[in-house]
């Protein structure tokens, strides 16, 4: 069963192809991370899947309904949290939630009960009756996501849910998404943050210039660009040569100095473990003072670089994607 199924989505703005034949399949109950730099087409994809935008060509089904011809049916089964906390600032948190409840035609007791439930879950009880204008950025995001859950959507779309949040609020948001997912909600998440996809997503689709350039689990993607590396730091740079010699028999490729460092070595190793204790022993034997030894799996940043030849611009936190 797929909660989201899209094939050949194309959307062109003026001369730019925001989407260039995107295919997506999201199994029910899983979290898909839609990963790509600014302007890759992530937001356009979400806008089409949430019925806000019509594709020029291609088709998509969400929760079993066509996003173009059965848009209302889709809308009643999805939740959307966009890049900007879309709350009514001059209403209180409670009123915002009840407003959405009204739009879903819940009667008064039901919408008030649901609002209370969500206020409690999202730690907004104390500020429930203050207008949202007075909320912090993290509180607004929590209210925003709570608003998209009022009608218990089966598919939740989160467009860069942690962009602009401080680390603590981001952690809180991640916990929320994990809980939703464990409740069985299908989540489609766009992000520029590689660690976010790493932590939350069951599978990842990497898009660049409106098309899919890779997909799979995070681990599969990492494997595609080569295996683990051992990273060895020593205290004294003069021991570097003997450390290289000691590591030689343990590694499977050239030993390199980590860029920007004079005391840290990087080298590929075979997957499967056992290398770290051996390395420590060998380094001890040759008299190099070891500061740190670790095994590093490649990050999604490395994945992106190797797939596209350019970096995912994950540092442009506040820039928005307009296309």
């Amino acid at each position, binding site marked *: 069963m797929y909660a989201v199924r899209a094939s050949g989505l194309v959307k062109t703005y003026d001369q730019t192809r925001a989407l260039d034949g995107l295919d997506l399949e999201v199994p029910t109950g899983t979290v898909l991370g839609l990963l790509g730099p600014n302007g890759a087409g992530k937001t356009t994809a979400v806008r089409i899947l949430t019925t806000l935008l019509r594709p020029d060509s291609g088709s998509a089904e969400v929760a079993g309904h066509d996003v173009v011809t059965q848009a209302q049916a889709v809308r009643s089964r999805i939740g*959307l949290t*966009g890049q900007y906390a879309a709350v009514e600032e001059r209403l209180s948190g409670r009123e915002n939630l009840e407003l959405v409840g009204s*739009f879903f035609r819940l009667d008064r007791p039901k919408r008030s009960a649901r609002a209370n439930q969500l206020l409690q*879950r999202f730690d907004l009880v104390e500020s429930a009756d203050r207008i949202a204008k007075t909320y912090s950025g993290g509180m607004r995001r929590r209210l925003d996501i709570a608003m998209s859950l009022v009608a*218990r959507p089966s598919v939740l779309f989160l467009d860069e849910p942690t962009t602009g949040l401080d680390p603590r609020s981001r952690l809180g948001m991640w916990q929320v998404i994990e809980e939703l997912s464990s*409740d*069985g909600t299908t989540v489609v998440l766009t992000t520029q943050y590689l660690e976010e996809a790493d932590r939350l997503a069951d599978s990842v689709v990497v898009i660049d210039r409106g098309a899919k350039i890779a997909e799979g689990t995070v681990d599969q993607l990492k494997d595609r660009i080569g295996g683990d590396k051992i990273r060895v730091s020593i205290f004294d740079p003069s021991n570097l040569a003997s450390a290289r010699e000691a590591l030689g028999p343990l590694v499977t490729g050239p030993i390199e100095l980590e860029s920007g460092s004079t005391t840290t070595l990087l080298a590929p190793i075979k997957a499967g473990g056992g290398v770290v204790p051996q390395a420590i022993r060998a380094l001890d034997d040759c008299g190099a003072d070891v500061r740190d030894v670790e095994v590093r799996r490649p990050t999604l940043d490395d994945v992106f670089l190797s797939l596209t030849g350019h970096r995912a611009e994950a540092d442009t936190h506040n820039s928005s994607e307009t296309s």
Partner: protein
Amino acid sequence: MTIDNSSRALSDVGSDPATSLTLADGLRDAATEAGRHLRIMPRNPEVLGFVVIQPVMFVLLFSVVFGGAIEVPGFADYDQFLMPGIFAQTVVFGSSFTAVGLAEDLSKGLIDRLRSLPIARSAVLVGRTFSDLVRNVLTFVVMLAVAFVLGFRFEGSIAGAIGGSLLMLAFSYSFSWIQAWIGLSVGSVEAANAASFTWMFPLTFVSSAFVDPSTMPGWLQPVAKHNPFTRLTNAARALYNGLDPSPDLWWALGWTGLITVIFATMAIRRFSQVSK
């Protein structure tokens, strides 16, 4: 505690919006949206100030400053001539709230949120324009009170007084739809502010609202005479002063209907395509 998002059944939802949207559903959605704005209105002191203070200022300024200087044939008292013009201008100006409010919702992503809900396409705009009409009624009552203090009186029948007032409110409501279209089209709150207001100055001043158009330069007179706003002012003025409102009344009603139909269609179409 969990989020309790596990229940997929729509049993909690009053009616499954997927299957059918009835007219009653649409009206209910529009009422919900209107309720949002009406609830906010008293919490927004600057807007309330604009609703009350600006109209009072207009009535006072025009009456006191121009009252002594301007003479209009057929009207012994300038206030009797002026007030319907001021009323009409103020409620028509009031329609700009629709443009600015929608542009604001759009820029905050609220329109996206509303468009992702299973509600009637027209509900958001109907609700918005309706709440702006309520605001205009408030403004109207305040102006009327000030005008009465200054000595303005209804010289015609009660039906004329009520009819003239309703006509002005209806006309301004049709303008709310122009403004809805503008607010969804211009792209920013600042632009909406300018785009909603600028064109209403020539529209309301090159008219019979403040002076007799026959005192204007020759080339401007036909413009002023056929201006829909002149038709509105003339009709309301006649109704307030117990004179025969035709044919201006029919013209004013015609314009109201025509503008509403054309711009409601355009605005609702725009709404279903618009994106932040």
